[in-house]
């Protein structure tokens, strides 16, 4: 416990609390002198909470020590290029570290924590949905100043956004841990910025959770005004949380791009980069350039609420549909931020387990960029029923359908990769195969949403809910698990238990299919999304019960994974060599990876995936580095 209180996390959280009190106190004081009301339903008034939330983030960052090097530089004090982590054991991961591997693990574990939280919320409202009528989230019950249906809305909305943040952190986790290793770099280009990007995500997550206890909000994760302009003060915490998390995404993406451009090993030309690096670049381009728009759109609503600026208020000449354009300009490309790294993991692992070169490497690499670019001109397909210009729906339909082409290239190339391979089925490979099939389901159910007329029926129903769970599970969750099983030995020198891994897979995959197919079915028949209760006359009770059971089975499978993950860190079977018999550079050195990565730099002398080409090598280590560290 004492150790915990000395970590950056504990310091940060303490200072965040102080920051909230200072910020809120400041506004309250000013309001008092101006003769305005000083308390409200949730103790502080809304402006006080907003400034408090904002100060909390600043105080967290300062208190955690994530910016102390910059602060020292500003005062003219030099700091060593690399910090040796003076913590060992688990405290290292709760403290500020500049090592990309530690940061990668911090991201990953935080993502798992949020995944569990978001999942827990889903289980709560999934249980309520098991039967029509309200069972425990009733109109009479009260919690955190909300009645049952309102709490349902809050949990449902937070499930969405917490999962999104979890995914962004998971993506950052994989990219941070793996990309420098694949490039042969010692670290990311900007290690301090990297630490900052991680640490700012923590107070952001705290803000999101705070929205739950401050009256919640009932808008779904999309936060459309005018509803979001009237929701309880929890809405503001949500906006602030997302705004803050956006910084993490933008700065993290910047770091990845610079690292890839500047820090590749000798001989690693663009067309010899591992495919995951390509995917990371594509993802980072989107995150770097689009995230601002969601931050902006939420900020505008924040200002509308605080200062009465009528951006989206028709009574003041504002336009509610404008918000949707701004919002989706990020939030559509964002789904490619979620899935491109996952698709990269699929492409990266398939050759290893099929013992065959990646079929059409260049095409796959370019398809990632293609998806990223086309992804920028399709946003209005979320708005076909919104009342936007009627005729503009048609060009957006064309552009949206174009996404199918680079995506199709990936599928065909994957199939061609395993065709006539020598496929083996260790746990990572199972998840890769699962990912392909699930993502295929998501991909195939996409075009009906893209063609305007069918979307008029499908929009805002459970069909969409099923469709995007397929794309996100196939494009992120399955590959994420694959990546964790695959790189776990690299990080720990031990491997996760295969049997438990297989139980995880075989429990999760069928349940997941039942869940999303069931969702799509009732969606087509009239189940709207985001409803706490449904008309018993629709006859969906049985299906919903099955969906709830499937949801719980998925949760159980994830518990199996969690146990396996945390237990294997200490007790897993030792695996220090090239466990998967991969050609990739990180597997050519013993695990766990040494503190400053490769003791000897390597040079790229061949193609990354030339499995089956006798005598070929991807990398060759060259003379010991002169660049020694303390």
């Amino acid at each position, binding site marked *: 416990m004492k150790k915990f209180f000395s970590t950056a996390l504990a310091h940060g959280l303490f200072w965040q609390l102080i920051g909230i009190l200072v910020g809120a106190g400041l506004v309250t004081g000013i309001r008092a002198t101006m003769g305005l009301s000083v308390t409200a339903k949730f103790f502080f008034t809304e402006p006080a909470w907003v400034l408090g939330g904002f100060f909390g983030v600043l105080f967290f960052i300062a208190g955690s020590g994530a910016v102390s090097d910059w602060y020292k530089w500003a005062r003219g004090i030099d700091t060593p290029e690399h910090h040796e982590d003076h913590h060992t054991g688990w405290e290292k991961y709760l403290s500020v570290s500049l090592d990309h591997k530690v940061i990668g693990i911090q991201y990953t574990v935080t993502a798992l924590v949020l995944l569990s939280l978001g999942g827990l919320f889903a289980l709560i409202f999934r249980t309520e949905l098991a039967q029509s009528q309200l069972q425990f989230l009733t109109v009479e019950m009260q919690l955190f100043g909300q009645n049952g249906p309102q709490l349902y809305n809050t949990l449902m909305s937070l499930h969405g956004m917490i999962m999104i943040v979890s995914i962004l952190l998971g993506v950052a986790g994989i990219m941070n841990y793996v990309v420098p290793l694949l490039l042969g770099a010692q670290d990311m280009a900007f290690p301090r910025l990297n630490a900052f990007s991680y640490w700012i995500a923590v107070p952001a997550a705290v803000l999101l959770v705070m929205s739950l206890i401050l009256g919640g909000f009932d808008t779904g994760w999309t936060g459309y005004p005018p509803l979001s302009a009237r929701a309880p003060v929890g809405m503001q915490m949500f906006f602030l949380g997302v705004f803050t998390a956006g910084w993490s995404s933008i700065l993290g993406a910047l770091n990845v791009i610079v690292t890839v451009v500047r820090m590749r090993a000798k001989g690693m030309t663009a067309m010899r980069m591992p495919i995951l690096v390509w995917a990371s670049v594509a993802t980072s381009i989107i995150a770097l350039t689009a995230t601002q728009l969601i931050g902006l759109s939420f900020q505008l609503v924040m200002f509308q609420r605080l200062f009465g600026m009528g951006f989206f208020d028709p009574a003041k000449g504002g336009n509610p549909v404008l918000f949707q354009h701004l919002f989706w300009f990020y939030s559509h490309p964002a789904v490619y931020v979620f899935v491109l790294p996952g698709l990269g993991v699929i492409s990266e692992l398939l050759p290893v387990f099929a013992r065959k070169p990646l079929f059409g490497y260049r095409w796959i690499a370019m398809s990632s960029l293609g998806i990223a670019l086309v992804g920028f001109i399709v946003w209005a397909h979320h708005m076909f029923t919104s009342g936007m210009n009627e005729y503009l729906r048609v060009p957006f339909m064309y552009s949206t359908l174009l996404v*199918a082409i680079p995506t199709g290239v990936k599928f065909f190339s994957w199939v061609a990769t395993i065709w006539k391979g020598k496929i083996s089925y260790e746990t990572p490979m199972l998840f890769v195969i699962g990912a392909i099939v699930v993502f295929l389901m998501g991909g*195939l159910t996409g075009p009906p949403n893209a063609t305007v007329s069918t979307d008029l029926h499908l929009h805002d129903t459970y069909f969409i809910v099923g469709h995007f769970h397929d794309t996100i599970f196939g494009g992120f969750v399955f590959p994420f698990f694959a990546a964790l099983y695959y790189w776990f030995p690299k990080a720990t020198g031990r491997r996760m238990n295969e049997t438990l891994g297989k139980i995880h897979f075989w429990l999760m995959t069928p349940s997941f299919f039942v869940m999303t197919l069931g969702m799509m079915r009732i969606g087509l028949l009239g189940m*709207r999304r985001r409803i706490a209760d449904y008309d018993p006359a629709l006859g969906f009770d049985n299906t919903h019960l099955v969906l709830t059971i499937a949801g719980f089975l998925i949760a159980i499978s994830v518990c199996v994974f969690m146990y396996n993950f945390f237990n294997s860190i200490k007790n897993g079977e030792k695996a220090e060599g090239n466990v998967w018999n991969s050609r990739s550079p990180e597997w050519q050195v013993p695990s766990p990876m040494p503190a400053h990565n490769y003791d000897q730099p390597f040079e790229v002398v061949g193609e990354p995936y030339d499995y089956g080409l006798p005598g070929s090598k991807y990398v060759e280590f060259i003379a010991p580095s002169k660049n020694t560290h303390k």
Partner: protein
Amino acid sequence: MRHFVVVGILVIVMAVLTYVGLDSAGLMPVEASAQSVSIDWLWNWQIVAISFLFALIVVPMAYSMVIFRRRKGDITDAEHVEGNTTLEITWTVIPLFIVLTFAYMGAYSLGETRRVDPNAMVIKVKAQQFTWTFEYPEYGGFFSNELHLPVDRQVVLKMESSDVIHSFWVPEFRVKQDVVPGRVTEYRITPTLIGSYKVRCAEICGTSHSYMENAIIVEDESVFTAWASEQETIMLASQTPESLGKILTVKNGCVGCHSIDGTQLTAPTWFGLYGSDVPLADGTTVVADDAYLAESILNSTAKLVEGFSPTTMPAYTLTDVEVANLIAYIKTLK
């Protein structure tokens, strides 16, 4: 070569089976509007494409996974094949054509759903938390919370929202259209099947969004005209405060939140309200007399009822007479 033949046959079998399976599963609700025909037509082609593409990927994958699995003890790599440009171009160009075809079909079927009948009957729709109000200008402008429609005649709904965004969706009609504050959106539909349906709000609009469902009755032209004329007569004949009050509750959508039969919705029920003791949020109680009701109607937050949210009830501008009529109506509910 043998592999390709086997896989080719399996793909076709699988595609056909998938299509037949999906087609016989009854994926869509009944088709109850002229507009749904072209939507279902496109949907069916989508299912064809989905079945085929599903088979095209899944069959060779499953086949490889079984036939090309690594045998025990085999530690060699597979054959070194890096790619094939002709193939890559093929599976870029052919899907491009398919996709463009679908986009064209999408535009065509969208056009069909928007086909205008100049004789369409106009009905005004007001969406508000958490009910729909329909106004029939062709019949003297009476109000109703149920939407009655004559079969086989196009209607155009001119929709407005008085608070947040809602979305008008009738699954059996297929079409969906958001209702946005500050503008009028249009929903064109030609019901083709007599029966009762529900309009279900499809855009989350607050606490009781789930219950924002109103009845739709599609009936024979003559039945419809009889109903509409009757409503018109009732409206014109309503002279007592109670009956005028009742019309006001329909027009202003009060019953979207307040029930008249004792069920608890977003707001306190009106059943037995008059004269009862109302517990307030500040812990006191108040007797629901005329003064209290009048105050609550015009400024509901002045005395907040315990357990309810202060933000939900909209601010109404009503004349003194209208308020009196509303109270007279509420008095009858016991």
